[in-house]
């Protein structure tokens, strides 16, 4: 175990990316270097348009970097893989399939009995028992996002990528979802890369917060959150980290 956890799980090496927009080249990512340990919860925090989602799409295998590379367990990422599941902000679950069928999506080649057990266990874990036959349309936003998390967890991936997964939810549901994701993360010990523009969200969730500057996205700093879960949002430590993150983002939050 110790030899494995010493080796980083995900390594970003000199990632740069630009887009061509109306004859103009927009550099969105500039020389990103980052190592993520196995089982670590890392938040990518930055203002809109800083390239944090692009970075997640690159590590997810959906987009290609112009230069540099991403390796996972030493292997270069060349495309998406069912070992590493992406949770999208705008529901990536299939509206034409029931909750059960959505969660079973990645378990197509498992034997029937194992599949049934895994699907049921995962649905129970995210708190959707009783909604197995429901369709996404009949669920609230928070429940849809639980389905998507369950779909990812069911295949027991090494890494989970989350691209502002709670961005479309109301603030109370968002808080609940955060504590749920921490509960599941502590139970399953997956490596999680989580993109957000919400400072509080990043402090509540992450072991480390990677702050990206605005375009072109560069790593401004990496802030360790050394607090135990459940985290006390009123503690001086929390306030100190929050101030540091706002400072790095270059905004004055005392409105």
């Amino acid at each position: 175990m110790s030899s494995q956890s010493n080796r980083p799980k995900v390594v970003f090496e000199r990632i740069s990316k630009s887009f061509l927009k109306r004859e103009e080249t927009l550099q969105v990512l500039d020389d990103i270097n980052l190592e993520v340990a196995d089982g670590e919860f890392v938040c990518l925090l930055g203002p809109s348009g800083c390239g944090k989602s692009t970075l997640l799409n690159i590590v997810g295998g959906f987009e290609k970097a112009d230069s540099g590379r991403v390796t996972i367990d030493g292997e270069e990422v060349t495309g998406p893989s069912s070992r590493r599941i992406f949770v999208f902000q705008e529901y990536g679950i299939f509206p034409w399939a029931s909750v059960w069928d959505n969660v079973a999506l990645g378990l197509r080649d498992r034997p029937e009995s194992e599949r049934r057990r895994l699907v049921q266990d995962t649905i129970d874990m995210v708190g959707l028992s009783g909604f197995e036959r429901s369709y996404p349309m009949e669920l609230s936003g928070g429940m849809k996002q639980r389905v998507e998390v369950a779909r990812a967890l069911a295949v027991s991936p090494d890494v989970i990528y989350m691209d502002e997964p709670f961005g479309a939810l109301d603030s109370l549901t968002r808080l609940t979802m955060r504590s749920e994701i921490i509960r599941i993360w502590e139970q399953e010990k997956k490596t999680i890369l989580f993109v957000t523009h919400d400072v509080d969200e990043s402090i509540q969730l992450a072991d480390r917060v990677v702050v990206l500057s605005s375009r072109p996205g560069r790593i401004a700093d990496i802030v360790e959150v050394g607090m135990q879960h459940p985290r006390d949002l009123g503690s001086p430590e929390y306030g100190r980290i929050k101030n540091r993150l706002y400072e790095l983002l270059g905004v004055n939050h005392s409105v």
Partner: protein
Amino acid sequence: MIPWHYILTVLAIGLFVCSGRLPARIERFILPISIGLLGLAAWQFACDFVFDEYTPTPGQTASAFLEIVGSNRLWSDSIASLYRVTWGFFLAVGLGIPLGLWVGWSARTFTALNPIIQGLRPISPIAWIPFAILWFNIGDGAGIYLIFYASFFPILVGTIAAVRNISLVHQRSARNFGLTGVELFRRVVLPAAMPQIITSLRIALGVAWLVIVAAEMVGMASGLGYLINDARNMGNRYDLVAATMLVIGGIGIVLDLLIRRLENFDEVRWGYERR
């Protein structure tokens, strides 16, 4: 005695005015009925004051309707039309949906075929009648061919558009979970496109029903279109023409109601309710 359409006019206006004060679920029925009755009265007024004596009145049309309903002719001609529409339509579904899925999904195929599809699409099926008759003679074959042609393009173009509209997150989800080949089509491409495909089927069936009547009027020896032509040719029986038109409209409504039932399945409802 006061003529019926005067009474009907007063009654329809009364219903129209009163319906505003009724509960919404009753108003939903009463309001269109009042307009329909007003239209019926207007038809009779037009016969009194505007149209010539050949134009049938509502009463003449009703008795012509009873006349044809009692005859075998109506049934055999309706069945002839429906037979051609059914075959042509299902052939178009069977070819149009798979081809549309393929063209919509494969960028290369789309580039190769789309200009040809767009070039053939504006040619009215009616313009094909001479060739249809040349190739299939007067009979069901020509009708089926024309209906196939008429419904094929709405289905094909609708399916292509539906596939090309599949959201990026669903495509990426499919890739993330390693879906490929037949499974990709069965689990993602087809179900994602289905709501829009069903809409294209509705349009296609509507067009098919319009086209079959026209085709039968010009180039066939049976069917409801032929019945209309026949009624006019044998002594200007415009009352029979109007009655047949009512039957055509009625069957068209029933066909649309039938195909709309496809929209109620759980697997496709998401595609209609969000908009």
